[in-house]
Every structure is written in structure tokens, then in C-alpha cells.
């Protein structure tokens, strides 16, 4: 069935799906993240770290039980849409997502976090110029994925334009990002690493890597994860075995003279949810 591009129901259905995705993401962690936290709590040898992980697991259970946000920094959402062939790419998509973020902010409620970058004036509804960021890719079904992200972890994320001869130094760059960050991003973290592409693309890949399930890592991701965990920063920077739950990597081709590497740091509350738009 073709959707009429002027049809306001598409925008409304998208707003509804965005709101539901945000509600799900804010109060309940995805099963793979929860499993990773439980696994880390079981394996952790440091007594203080075990207690911190125990607090985190108790907090997750309480948030779900009371239907309140997991953390008071409810973040700002990055939004990813998949678009089937019969849905036209129009401004209605962006309007729907924006409306959904506004509705979710009032209904859940979410902390209004979006401000003008220079005047710092708060919009009050978690939208702003160009915000939320919406990324569209082709797909089988019309879906909305939200990744609301707090500032503590976003602020310590890093990008480096390494030299082509420095591919072997990527583990060092990734570990160094966490050395500089310490306890600030609320570890245990999940690191999204974007390798290659262009300056902007590496950062986008790093963020997209945070959408990947954390229950598996390939050998390279495991090597990066081990390098980070060897630092012993531990949960909340209080020391321990568990600094990173997982490292996820996305790659793209790049210029023969470049090696962009971006590390997007995500706190333990890796909040993401996908909802199919009802049509």
C-alpha cells in the first residue's frame, strides 16, 4: 500500500512509535546489556566493584518495577529509522520523530536537556535546531530505534586522525580514551569504535556501533576490550576488573593517506529500543 506523503497519519504514527521507543529505552535496559552486567557482576573479583555492580543491578530492577527512568540524566536521543520502499522520504518523517520526542519528554517525564549551544537557553522539550539527530537507512519495515545518551559519557568521547602507519596503535588510542576518562563516564562502559571512513563518518560509525548487541565480540573487539579492562579503572572509577562490558567496532573504507578513529563512550546504562511503526 502506498502511503500518501501529505498524510498526517504517517507523521502521527511515527510520533507514537518514537514515544513508545523512548519509554521502553528509558525504563528498561536491553536484555544483552543486562546479561553483560550480570556476567560482569558474577566474574568481578574486587569487593568494592562487586558492590557497585550490585547497586546497578538493583537500580535497574527498581526502575522497571516503578516505571521510572533508569538514570536522572535521561540524555538526548539519537534516532535511527529504517524506511521500506513504499514510504516516501519526506519532512513528515522528521516532524513525526520530533513530535514523539516532545510527547515523551512530557509523558515519561524526561529531563529537558537540549539547550542552545551558545546562549544555553533550554527549549524545555528536548528538541532544538537539528535535534534530535535522525538517521535514515533503507529497510524491510518502517522502524524507529532510539539511543538516548547522557552527557557524562558523551563528553569523554574522542576522535583521532591517525596516520596510515598507526593501525597498530588503535588499541592504545582506545585504552587511552578510557585512561583520560577515568570514572567520569560512569563505567562499566560500552565503547563504540568507528574505524575508517572520513572525519564525520568515523564518529557516526562509532555511535552506530553502540546499537550492536554486546553479547558477542570478534577477536579484534576482544583485544580492545582486554586493553581497556587491564587499566583496572573499574565501576565508577573505584577500581576493579570491569571497566568495559564490551567494545564494538564498525569499519569503512578510507583515504589511503588517512586513518580516522572515533571512540564513542557509553555509560553502563546503554539505553536503546526499536519499535515498528503501526501503519
Amino acid at each position, binding site marked *: 500500500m502506498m502511503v500518501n506523503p501529505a498524510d498526517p497519519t504517517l507523521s502521527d504514527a511515527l510520533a507514537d512509535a518514537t514515544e513508545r521507543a523512548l519509554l521502553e529505552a528509558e525504563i528498561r535496559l536491553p536484555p544483552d546489556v543486562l546479561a553483560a552486567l550480570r556476567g560482569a557482576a558474577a566474574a568481578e573479583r574486587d569487593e568494592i566493584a562487586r558492590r557497585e555492580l550490585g547497586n546497578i543491578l538493583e537500580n535497574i530492577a527498581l526502575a522497571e518495577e516503578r516505571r521510572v527512568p533508569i538514570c*536522572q540524566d535521561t540524555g538526548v536521543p539519537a534516532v535511527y529509522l529504517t524506511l521500506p520502499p513504499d514510504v516516501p522520504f519526506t519532512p513528515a518523517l522528521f516532524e513525526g520523530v520530533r513530535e514523539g520526542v516532545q510527547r515523551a519528554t512530557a509523558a515519561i517525564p524526561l529531563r529537558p536537556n537540549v539547550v542552545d549551544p551558545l546562549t544555553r537557553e533550554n527549549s524545555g522539550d528536548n528538541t532544538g535546531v537539528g535535534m534530535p539527530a535522525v538517521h535514515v537507512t533503507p529497510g524491510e519495515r518502517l522502524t524507529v530505534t532510539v539511543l538516548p545518551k547522557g552527557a557524562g559519557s558523551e563528553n569523554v568521547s574522542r576522535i583521532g586522525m591517525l596516520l596510515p602507519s598507526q593501525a597498530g596503535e588503535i588499541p592504545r588510542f582506545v585504552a587511552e580514551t578510557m585512561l583520560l576518562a577515568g570514572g567520569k563516564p*560512569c563505567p562499566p562502559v560500552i565503547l563504540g569504535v568507528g574505524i575508517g571512513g572520513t572525519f564525520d563518518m568515523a564518529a557516526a560509525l562509532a555511535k552506530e556501533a553502540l546499537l550492536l548487541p554486546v553479547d558477542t565480540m570478534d577477536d579484534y573487539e576482544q583485544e580492545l576490550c582486554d586493553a581497556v579492562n587491564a587499566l*583496572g579503572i573499574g*565501576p565508577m572509577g573505584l*577500581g576493579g576488573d570491569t571497566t568495559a562490558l564490551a567494545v564494538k567496532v564498525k569499519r569503512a573504507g578510507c583515504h589511503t593517506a588517512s586513518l580516522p578513529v572515533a571512540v564513542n563512550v557509553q555509560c*553502563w546504562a546503554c539505553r536503546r529500543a526499536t519499535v515498528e511503526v503501526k501503519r
Partner: protein
Amino acid sequence: MNLTTPLGDEVLDLRAGDTVTLSGTIYTARDEAHLRMMEEGIPFDPEGAAVYHCGPVVQDGRLVVAGPTTSARMNRLSGFLIDAGVRALVGKGGMGPEVVEQLRGRGVYLALTGGCAALAAARMTLKGVYFEDLGMAEAVWVIEADHLPLTVGIDAHGGDLFRAVREKAKTQFHQRFNTKQDTVS
């Protein structure tokens, strides 16, 4: 060990890394509240008080979520509170060397697990508010705490668990990557 406010010399016996719980009246304060208190005075009795770095979500006179915020933002704003008799600062991420010195012989920094906003709220009851005009996140909320689970991050003897972990991490990093440089060129 369970601590109950108002706190006294018992906090001097604590060591960085110890586990404690905290009960009794505590007061939230972030950047704006600190600045206001410096100007207008402390609206509560600071003797033996605990100050919680937190901007809660409050709805209909009830705490919805109330996790800790980053304490380091208050590094240069905390001396007057400790001078006035505050015995405990509660937050996440630790504090700077100036606060470590200010707490020496007088008080402690207690770390609450970052992001644990629902857990914190479940062990708190809202009792009142000062400086409500500063807004929800920045007002001084009066809270009755019931066994908040905390780790002593900084003790009254110069012990700083966060600094010890950072130094160890730096050593590990330089050993693993065989370098003394701090940044990739």
C-alpha cells in the same frame, strides 16, 4: 557501618574503600545552590550535615529519581561548607586535591553509584526545600535518607581511592603500551 546525621567524629575513623550506609536528613546542592549559599548563607544547620550532589526529578512533592551528579564540578565551591561544619559530601566521581585537603581531620567524601537514580529515590523521602526559585535540579532539597549504600571515596586522612585507581591505571597503560607519552600524536 551505618552513619546517621548529624555526623560527628565517627567519620574520622573511616578509611577510603570502606563501605557505609547513611541515614537521616541530608541536603541536595549543585553548582547554583553552592553559589547562593555563599552569598546568602546556609539555610540549614551545617554542623554535622551531609550535602548530596544531586539534581533530582521531583513530581507532586515526591522524588521520582535522585541519582548523584558529578561532584568535581563543586571542587572550588565546597570549602565554606566544610568550614561551617559539614562532615560529609556525597556524590559521584570523586573530588579534587583541594577538597582532599579541606576534608583532612574534618570530614569525608562518600560515593554513590552513578546512574542509580531509582535506587537512591527508593531509599529517600522528600521533606522540604530551600531556594526553590533555582529550579528543580538546582534547589536545595531536604531529604530523609534510609540506609543509602555508599563507599568512602576520600577519608579524613588524605586517602583518596579515586586518585589511587587513576595512578594505577596510568602505570598499567604505560607498561602495556611501553610509552611515557600521554597522547597519541
